[in-house]
């Protein structure tokens, strides 16, 4: 089995205007930089993007926002992007804000064939509006539906031609659950290794969830809040 494609331009073939995409990452950590670059270059528009955050003004999904390629964002936290806030407050961008745990679980459920689930998160808030409420163990819960996407785009540390993936550090975040929920899942990896090189015990995302894989180039890995202490 060989799912390898040459590069990000090849990997995003078939992504069309108006489609729904999932993009892994938390802040700028673990985002698919190469594929975002190709989406910007190809000027695919009217996208619905499901991603925990919306990048910053000049990096990550912020690059797609700058060019007005995104019609709707489904996220949990968008506080670092002024252009996002401007487009949203002006009504130029549709935004669905979802509690972070519900967002993760809705992706996981979408990939796992669970159409909906009950969670206490958001009960009594705007998030619960229009949703079924049911009490379990004396506590009210709201019904949240699963999320899937035409394409899920994830970023991993290492991968092989089977699509097996290993993530590094906190760059894992939403990537494994989104990999499960894409009709087509694209994985860009820092290092593409030969079949059999990855220890099966250490694989985070089994290749069955991944349809296309390539080794990315020129990762910037920008740090949003560089916080250090001095040795003295």
């Amino acid at each position, binding site marked *: 089995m060989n799912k390898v494609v040459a590069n990000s331009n090849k990997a995003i073939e078939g992504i069309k205007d108006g489609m729904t995409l999932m993009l892994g990452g938390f802040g700028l950590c673990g985002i698919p930089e190469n594929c975002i670059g190709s989406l910007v270059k190809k000027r695919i528009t009217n996208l619905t993007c499901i991603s925990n955050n919306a990048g910053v003004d000049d990096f990550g999904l912020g690059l797609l926002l700058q060019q007005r390629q995104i019609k709707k964002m489904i996220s949990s*936290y968008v506080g670092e992007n002024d252009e996002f806030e401007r487009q949203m*407050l002006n009504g130029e961008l549709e935004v669905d804000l979802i509690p972070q745990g519900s967002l*993760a679980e809705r992706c996981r459920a979408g990939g796992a064939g669970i159409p909906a689930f009950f969670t*206490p*998160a*958001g009960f009594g808030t705007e998030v619960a509006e229009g949703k079924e409420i049911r009490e379990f163990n004396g506590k009210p819960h709201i019904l949240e539906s699963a999320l899937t996407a035409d394409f899920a785009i994830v970023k991993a540390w290492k991968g092989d031609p089977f699509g097996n993936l290993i993530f590094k550090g906190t760059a*894992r975040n939403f990537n494994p659950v989104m990999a499960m929920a894409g009709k087509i899942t694209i994985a860009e990896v820092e290092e593409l290794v030969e079949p059999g090189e990855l220890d099966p015990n250490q694989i985070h995302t089994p290749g069955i969830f991944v349809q296309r894989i390539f080794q990315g180039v020129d990762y910037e890995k920008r740090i*949003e809040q560089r916080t250090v202490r001095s040795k003295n």
Partner: protein
Amino acid sequence: MKKELSREPFVQKTKYQNLGMLDKVGIVKRIAQELQDGWYVNLGIGIPTLVANYIPQGISVEFQSENGLLGMGAFPYDGEEDADLINAGKQTVTLLPGATLFDSATSFAMIRGQHVQLTVLGAMEVAENGDIANWKIPGRMVKGMGGAMDLVASAENIIVAMMHTNKKGESKILSNCTLPLTGVACVKKVVTNLAVMEIKDGAFHLIERAPGVSVEEIQNATEGTLIVEGEIPEMQLD
């Protein structure tokens, strides 16, 4: 040999603002006294993060960061930062011995499944029934709730770290929240620059005063129902 990882406390340089009788550090020092040995703790972005600097001696806790990390350590030394290792506030961090990394769904299974013993977070408003608002000011500011709604809906122990009043001097300790809610009837304890209060039976109960702050000053700064019973001691810091 495995690299020896530091267990030094977190160090974060902040501009200490004197925003009341207690500054941010005073608030987090008081909250740190609530930590119990063996607890897993989630600290929210901003002031709550600083609680990690003041863990009482002899107490061992593990910090959970909802982006997928348990066993969060100090900020890295200059030059040793790793873009693939951040906390929920997107700050670079390090791992302590015994740390573990996981995906976002697993992280919120820990939270929703009540495996985390304490959540400390900030708030714009808190109400006397335990409601909390901290994610949106309609028409003006929308940052999103991040993990706050999941945390407050499930945590058994929620402590809110906040200023008692806003910059105009208006109370943020209210009978009813005016801003969109993050969670309902969930906050159990509030530590402000003026007071420590418990929330029960639909009222704030004054437990401690900040050093030098009178009960009257706290009453004047509190719009919600404040129950004062007996002598109210001062917080013991340091």
